[in-house]
């Protein structure tokens, strides 16, 4: 990202403008030595209408002013913001358990599964944060790192587009997922003054922790100790939701109603101890709002270490100044005291 602006390195040089009236006064007072030469006028070639003496003085003062401006060192500053230095490290922990197939979300009036509903929104979220490094952890019965922290968001979006429930064994290992996310964030060193800043985890789930080695709260404490906020998003409605039933060949056979088992208490607890936030999304629209809120809670930061590329621009002033000076010297016959 480029930010251009013009500034002067030595603005105190502008004080030299005060010298101009003094110079003009001294020039007026100056005694000019002249030779008395009789008949000299008849030795000069007949004059064309030469430039009035004013011009010489005007050119001189313009060139002086330009020289002063040039001496003030105008610089074009281009602020270069290195992408690594700004923004957040974000781990997205996405639940891919079987319950994500529950079709309790609506998109364009059509019933879709929870997963289908949230994936475009996650993609949108990634797109909104071009300066952040984002990684993805997916979890079902076990948790896997789908993508380590990366700036290659196109690739991330592609990966997210491919996500489906079938890849993983059933279950919900929230604790493991959190733990992996935390460990991914700690691998990239971003400790400032002992506190990890600029990273957070977004945990998206629709169930309760029922597998894995770590308890969610253990992982949350780990995150809290490292100062990583965890935003938890509970997806899906409470109560009875339609659930697709597949036959062995994987064809949809129909729907059956099941009770969703979202563990709100644990999610709230996680977000509280890590100073994150807990959200409950019943449909796609709410998820969108939630991501917007996360965006707001973690404003895109700019790195304090700003690298600026300064280009000296004095020659744009100095060259015309010298040109004018030269021109004023060329104008002949007007070193009169009458010109100011």
């Amino acid at each position: 990202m480029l930010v251009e602006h013009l500034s002067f390195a030595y603005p105190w040089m502008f004080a030299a403008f005060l010298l101009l009236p003094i110079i003009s006064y001294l020039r007026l007072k100056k005694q000019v030595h002249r030779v008395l030469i009789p008949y000299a006028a008849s030795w000069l070639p007949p004059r064309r209408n030469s430039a009035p003496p004013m011009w010489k003085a005007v050119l001189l003062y313009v060139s002086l002013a330009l020289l002063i401006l040039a001496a003030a060192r105008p610089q074009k500053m281009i602020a270069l913001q290195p992408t690594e230095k700004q923004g957040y490290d974000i781990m997205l922990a996405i639940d891919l358990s079987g319950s994500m197939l529950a079709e309790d979300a609506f998109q364009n009036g059509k019933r879709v599964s929870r997963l289908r509903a949230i994936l475009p929104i996650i993609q949108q979220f990634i797109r909104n944060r071009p300066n952040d490094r984002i990684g993805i952890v997916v979890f079902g019965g076990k948790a896997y790192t789908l993508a380590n922290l990366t700036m290659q968001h196109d690739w991330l979006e592609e990966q997210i587009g491919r996500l489906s429930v079938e890849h993983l064994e059933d279950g919900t290992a929230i604790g493991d997922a959190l733990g992996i996310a935390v460990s991914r964030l700690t691998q990239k060193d971003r400790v400032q003054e002992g506190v990890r800043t600029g990273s957070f985890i977004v945990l998206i789930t629709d169930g309760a922790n029922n597998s894995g080695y770590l308890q969610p709260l253990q992982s949350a404490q780990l995150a809290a100790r490292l100062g990583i906020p965890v935003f938890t998003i509970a997806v899906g409605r409470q109560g009875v939701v339609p659930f697709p039933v597949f036959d062995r060949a994987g064809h949809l056979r129909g729907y059956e109603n099941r009770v969703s088992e979202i563990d709100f208490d644990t999610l709230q607890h996680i977000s509280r101890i890590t100073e994150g936030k807990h959200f409950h999304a019943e449909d796609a629209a709410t998820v969108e709002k939630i991501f917007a809120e996360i965006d707001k809670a973690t404003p895109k930061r700019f790195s304090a270490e700003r690298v600026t590329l300064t280009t000296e621009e004095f020659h744009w002033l100095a060259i015309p100044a010298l040109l004018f000076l030269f021109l004023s010297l060329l104008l002949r016959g007007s070193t009169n005291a009458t010109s100011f």
Partner: protein
Amino acid sequence: MALAGFYRSAFRGRGVDFDQVVKYVYGDDVRTIDWNVTARRGEPYRKKYIEERELSLHIFFEEGPGMFFGSGNRICRECALDFIALICYLCVLNRDCLSINHLTASSHTFYKPGRGRSSLFATAQKILNSPYRVISGQIEDTKLSQVLRTTVRLLPKHTIFFWLSDFPPRDIPKVWPILQQRFVCIGVRIDDPWYTATPRSGMFSAIDTSDGETLTLDWGNPKVRRQHTQWRHCREQIWKRLFPAAADRLTLQVGQPTFKQLYEFLLRRTRLSQRCSLNI
């Protein structure tokens, strides 16, 4: 006193009436030598004629702005005053009658004809001590003609009329032919090096004293050089029209000794006049 001898020979033809025999001085016309007396006395003597006694001279000193200029050590005015002083001295030696017109842009002084040491030295003193002021502005043509016209009436015929000036290019006064008829007119022109040659280089911010204009004079500029050459040419033309005979033109270079230049002029004039009289 060789200068005195040449002076006599240069300005007078021989008179008709024999007066006396005097000692020969180098520069006197050799044809006037009285060989009889010379043989008797063992040293050269020459015959003196009546006409020689009465010689009237006039210096018309026109002190224009050009006189206050010198590109070297001396200004033209000094050279002109040298000349006046020398003529005064020669007149004293020959007991000739000298009057002087001193004309500047702002004043006009006529020094009455005088003869002899006291009178002429007093005149010379006055002229040499005349106030030295840089006068801006040329002598007007009308004023010049007026003074010349008065001079015609004041001076006797056959007066030797020295016009001492720097002769800038200008119109010839209408009265001039009359003066040429009545008097023996001799032009004495004071020349600064800048009036006779174009300097190679140099740039001056200057005031033209002839019209008070401020300007920058750049000798490096070919246009200026061309214009100056033209001016010189014009000046030379006027000079030759005023005094057609080469023997009547005396040019005094400021940088060179005035005495030497006057001596050479008289010598040259003597030779020319002798040649003329031989032809007759």
